[in-house]
């Protein structure tokens, strides 16, 4: 049973969403495409599949199932919102995460359907024409477009390491310009959210996150790549609410990044029981034991991988028997240590002419402890021979 108060609050929200969808419906379509229902149907998905998908997204955003039809309606008006997708210093993995699946999912069909005014990977235009498209889109849909940025942004005196197009604009300049007039800004993937792999020490291109080059609020959707559900879910959330989602300390939507991998892990029971995989391929690995000792960084990582999974919900790293790398955390490349070893084996850059290589906190600690012990023994011996002055 739900309490009256809660029911009413959902009614308010329901009406609010309805108004929002109506408002969007009355906006002109960006370009005349066939309705998304037809596209989905032609791709082999029945209405049942479509509603199942809408139900899943509804549940993911923590809304009651009565909102499912509303979600289905919302998708139909998704083509009213113009989207500009910029690629910075990156590998295009986030775009690939959405598009490159063996069987296209409804997520990827929606991604095709929404009005991507500019997306370097999938647009037909090239060269000057592409530049023009971007400029026009930014002018025409000023203060209306959704900006999605993929990739870290080279800055400082290496800003020119990322220079795009005939005008020779740097990535940073483009990102700043596009951010200024966007209705809402999403940083897709760890690189644009936190700098990512190219910002790893020693960061030769001085890559930084999108939030560091603009004053606007940036919603981070990190992951390497983020699951297609988290990308589309963030978009659907904005579509329905028209406002920013509740964000955590790193500006990540709480509905996706509220809990740690560890909190949602299917192997958590083995962790608490002290049952660990000692090395890949051993008996424990076959029995699905916890991967903490072979380097799982789930305890330090906030994401919903175990719930949404990847590749059309087939699996996710821990399910496949490989520990979490912590890819949705800031500076994960530097802070998480060696991939297949626990965090306490993290190496510190203490060279000392090669002597300090492979130095973990425990090894440095033991070395200092030994030095202390030697010092104490020496001091004690000398003191016993030549007493301190009284």
């Amino acid at each position: 049973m739900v309490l009256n108060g809660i029911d009413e609050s959902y009614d308010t929200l329901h009406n609010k969403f309805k108004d929002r969808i109506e408002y969007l419906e009355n906006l002109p379509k960006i370009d005349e495409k066939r309705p998304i229902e037809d596209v989905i149907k032609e791709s082999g998905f029945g209405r049942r599949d479509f509603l199942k998908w809408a139900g899943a997204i509804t549940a993911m955003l923590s809304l009651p199932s009565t909102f499912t039809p509303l979600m289905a309606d919302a998708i139909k008006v998704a083509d009213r919102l113009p989207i500009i997708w910029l690629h910075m210093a990156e590998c295009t993995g986030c775009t690939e995460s959405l598009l490159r699946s063996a069987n296209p999912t409804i997520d990827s069909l929606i991604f095709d359907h929404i009005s991507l005014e500019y997306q370097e990977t999938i647009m037909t235009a090239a060269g000057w024409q592409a530049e023009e498209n971007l400029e026009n889109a930014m002018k025409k849909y000023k203060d209306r477009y959704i900006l999605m940025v993929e990739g870290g942004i080279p800055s400082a005196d290496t800003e020119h390491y990322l220079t795009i197009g005939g005008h020779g604009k740097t990535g940073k300049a483009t990102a700043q310009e596009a951010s200024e007039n966007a209705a809402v800004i999403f940083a897709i993937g760890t690189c644009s959210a936190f700098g990512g792999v190219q910002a790893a020490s020693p960061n030769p291109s001085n890559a930084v996150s999108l939030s560091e080059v603009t004053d606007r609020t940036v919603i981070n959707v990190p992951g390497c790549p983020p699951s297609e559900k988290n990308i589309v879910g963030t978009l659907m959330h904005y579509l329905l609410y028209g406002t920013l989602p509740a964000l955590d300390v790193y500006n990540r939507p709480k509905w996706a990044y509220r809990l740690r991998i560890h909190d949602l892990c299917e192997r958590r029971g083995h962790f608490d029981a002290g049952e660990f995989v000692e090395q890949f391929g051993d008996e424990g690995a076959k029995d699905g034991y916890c991967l903490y000792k072979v380097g799982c960084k789930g305890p330090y990582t906030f994401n919903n991988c175990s719930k949404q999974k990847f590749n059309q919900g087939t699996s996710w790293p821990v399910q496949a028997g490989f520990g979490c790398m912590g890819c949705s955390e800031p500076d994960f490349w530097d802070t998480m240590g060696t991939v297949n070893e626990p965090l306490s084996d993290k190496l510190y850059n203490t060279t000392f002419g090669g002597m300090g290589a492979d130095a973990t906190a425990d090894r440095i600690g033991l070395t200092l402890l030994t030095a202390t012990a030697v010092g104490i023994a020496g001091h004690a011996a000398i003191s016993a021979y030549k007493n301190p002055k009284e």
Partner: protein
Amino acid sequence: MAKSEENSIEEHKEEIERELEFSAGYRWQHWIRAISIVVLIGTGFYIAVPFISPVQTAQPDNFLYALFRSWHIIFGFILTYVIFYKSFMFLYGQKYQMERDAIKDVFNIKIWKKQIGYYLLVSKHPKLSGVYNPIQFMAYAGFYVMMFFLILTGFILYVHVYHDGLGGFLYSPMRYFEVAFGGLAMVREIHHIAMWGVILFIVGHIYMAIYNAVFGKEGAIDAIFSGMKWHKKH
């Protein structure tokens, strides 16, 4: 007691007297802290790398890691309490004036020189204003800095394991510090490194305690058990 020693105390009775150095509260908090630290280091190493596994049985009721973590958290709270108690007493406690008196010597270069000289066996022990010499005082100050880092990082890690009650109450402020430290992985590393600092402190601390017991002739190590220390009559 050997006859000769008895005589020697008799001999000195006119010159030395027993004085209260550490109050009962001080001694209790010291030993509770010591025990907590030992338990926390042991369980902490297990939490970092679980080095023993339980015997596998058909009954899934042997939660070894959870057990280690429980004891770690229980003693963590005990330690937090005594650290807060002692810090408060250091600042405001009436019986802790002799600790606060030691601050003065830290800014006295002559006492520093004499104290270092004493440990290098070249000069006499300086006359101190409080109960601690400046080197000792700085070591304790460093110890407390590490303790506060351990408590803070410990609480950040705690709120992600227990989301209700105190964990829920502290969740938002602790996440602020989590960002300041650079993420949960860094919090864990700082927690680990600060522990090594505490281990090094303990080794030095025990050595100096024994050293003063052997050479100090004031019954310095007695003070932490009985509270009493021998002083020359002034």
